[in-house]
């Protein structure tokens, strides 16, 4: 499992605010291997979203290099980048970003519209994906008739539509209540384990991050620290220390009382 899906070398991103130059990413080197579930944590303004935009080919780095699925995408023009975004990347947003005038199934089908699949194949795939995220039979509902958690599930199904090499999730649980938050993070964990989906998730919630395999800490545009995550989904909700059963919402193991949050909260705020 050491095959790199995503690799950056000396990545810089600088915003120009008038005469002032504001560095958002600074000499950032990152590698995400196939099948990995990586969480990126950092305080506000640490460059999390900028990093995700650059990784998702929504923004270009000022300098450096980025390789996605063995393709150097650093200097690709827009006329090629959209194909990369369509076929290799799946986005999940904090605010779900579903199109309100389309129903759940239509939202899921949207990224496939300009692909090579036939209409019937698209419909079939849409049903399969909705089923995968636990929304079988809810395809006809418009987003406004779905709960926040359900909307994020639709967004996850949409992100999986073209079977991307990597899923980039920007605060996917940021707009959800506790129950839905762990449902979604559990869903992401399961996708990672069962389908081998590579996931990079930006979050400032340490508890959510603990569900990942590896947690990177970002500060001032640089990765300052890296920790092993607990990858709770992999352990089928067993305490990594004593092996006793835990709930996804548990911050401490009810048996051994050890802290289940991998990241330190103070580092993420």
């Amino acid at each position, binding site marked *: 499992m050491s095959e790199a899906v995503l690799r950056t070398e000396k990545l810089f991103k600088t915003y120009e605010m008038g005469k002032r130059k504001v560095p958002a990413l600074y000499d950032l080197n990152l590698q995400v291997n196939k099948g990995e579930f990586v969480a990126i944590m950092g305080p506000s303004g640490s460059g999390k979203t900028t990093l995700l935009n650059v990784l998702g080919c929504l*923004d270009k780095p000022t300098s450096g290099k980025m390789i996605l699925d063995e393709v150097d995408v650093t200097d690709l023009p827009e*006329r090629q980048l959209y*194909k990369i975004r369509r076929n290799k990347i799946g986005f999940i947003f904090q605010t779900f970003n579903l199109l309100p005038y389309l129903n759940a199934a239509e939202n899921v089908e949207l990224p496939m519209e*300009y692909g090579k699949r036939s209409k019937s194949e698209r419909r079939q795939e849409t049903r399969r994906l909705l089923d995968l995220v636990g929304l079988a039979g809810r395809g006809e509902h418009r987003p406004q008739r779905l709960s926040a958690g359900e909307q994020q599930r639709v967004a996850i199904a949409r992100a999986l539509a073209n079977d991307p090499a990597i899923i980039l999730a920007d605060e996917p649980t940021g707009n959800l209540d506790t129950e839905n938050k762990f449902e979604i993070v559990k869903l992401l964990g399961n996708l990672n384990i069962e389908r081998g989906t590579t996931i990079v998730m930006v979050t400032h919630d340490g508890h959510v991050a603990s569900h990942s395999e590896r947690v990177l800490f970002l500060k001032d545009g640089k990765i300052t620290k890296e920790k092993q995550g607990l990858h709770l989904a992999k352990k089928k909700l067993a305490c990594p220390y004593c092996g006793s059963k835990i709930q996804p919402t548990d911050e401490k193991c009810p048996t051994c009382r050890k802290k289940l949050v991998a990241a330190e909260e103070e580092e993420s705020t």
Partner: protein
Amino acid sequence: MGAFTRAVRNLSRRKMRALLVIIALGFSMAIMVSIPAGIVANQEAAQAMTANFNSTMTTTQEEINKTATLIECQTSGQGMFRGGQPGFPPGGMQQQQTYVEESVANEIRSISGVKDVVEFITVSSSETTSETINGPRGRTFTISRPVYTITGVTLNSSFIDDYSILPTNITAGRNLRHGDSGVVLLNSNLTAYFGVGVGDKVEMYGASFTVVGVYDAAGEGRMETRSAYMNITDAQTAAGLTGNVSRLDVYAKNVSDVDSIAEVIGAAYTSLQVTTYKDRLSQIENMQTMYTQTLTSAQATVSQTETVATQEIMMAVVATSLIVLFVMLYTVRERTKEIGTLKAIGFSNWNVMSQFMLEGMLLSLVAGVVGIAIGTVGAPLLSGILLPQISPFGSRGSSQFRPGAANAGNFGNFGILGASTVTVTPSLQTMLIAIGAAVLLGALGSLYPAWRAARTRPAEAMRYE
């Protein structure tokens, strides 16, 4: 789920806005639809006027040619009851009708330069009716007038063909013709008075005549005259005036001979009042000048219409494009985040651009249909408001000539310019062009907003709230 369905959903998502925009665009489109229809209507009106003018002038000219050579010789009292003479004074009633011998006609025929002499006799019944008529300024007159007046005409087929000696406005039955005898042509006032119709018999001067036809009495002057036409011999016999005539229409071979012939007749027969048609000729020339001026002004109106229409259509085009432009700019701004999402999930610049252009075009298409509906219903009103109108006059009266010398006073009644109603209806072609124009303007108006949407950088769009 294609781009088209998304475009429809997006338009229907904000119904009130779409409705207002469609109404605004619809009015623009309605202007575009109704103005060409207005132009066409004006052009048709002008063409109808020209055609009517030309045909009337041709007829008039023929009439001039026919009557310019006419020297009218009438005995005293003539013209009081003759069919078609308008506006005679009631005082004339008291004037006694006199006659001349038929031999006078033969004598006149022998004058050099005379082509034909047509004989008439006008006789009025001795029985009279007493009637009250309204005079000018609210005054009323009580008059006594004959029950009927008969005009006896020489029913020679070449005269009938060449000269206006009989009424032309036959409403029932037939006109008199060569060889008719024992038959009578009555005007509608007289058939009403007698209560008879075609085929019935009427008694006049003690003799029985079969009614062969009825002519319209309208235009025979202010008085509701009761007139009849018959063979001159029948009239002479019935009235006991065999060998007498009351009027001779003398036709010269050339117009240049008219004056000299009139002079000779006037000198030889003092009992005849001799008049030529020179005065009428000048009257017709004046009329021609007036109509030419009217036509010129109508043509000027048409060209003015086209200029105004061009400006108004240009304004409508600009207005439509601007409405689409601003609405689509607003839409693009409002949906920035959606644009970012679409790009993030793999929509190309072209996919995004075509999506917004499609929406703009669809909006304009619907507006075009609405505009055509408004335009079709409101075309007369809209073109009436927006375009200068040709107002054809002369819709009153009728255009037929009346027999003989009676024509002179009646030209003012001619419907010479016809076309009293201008119908403004957009043609199918105009409608199709309007639909095409609507879609094109929609594309034009949404081009820049759609381009802006396509050029939106996804990372910035995602940050947009």
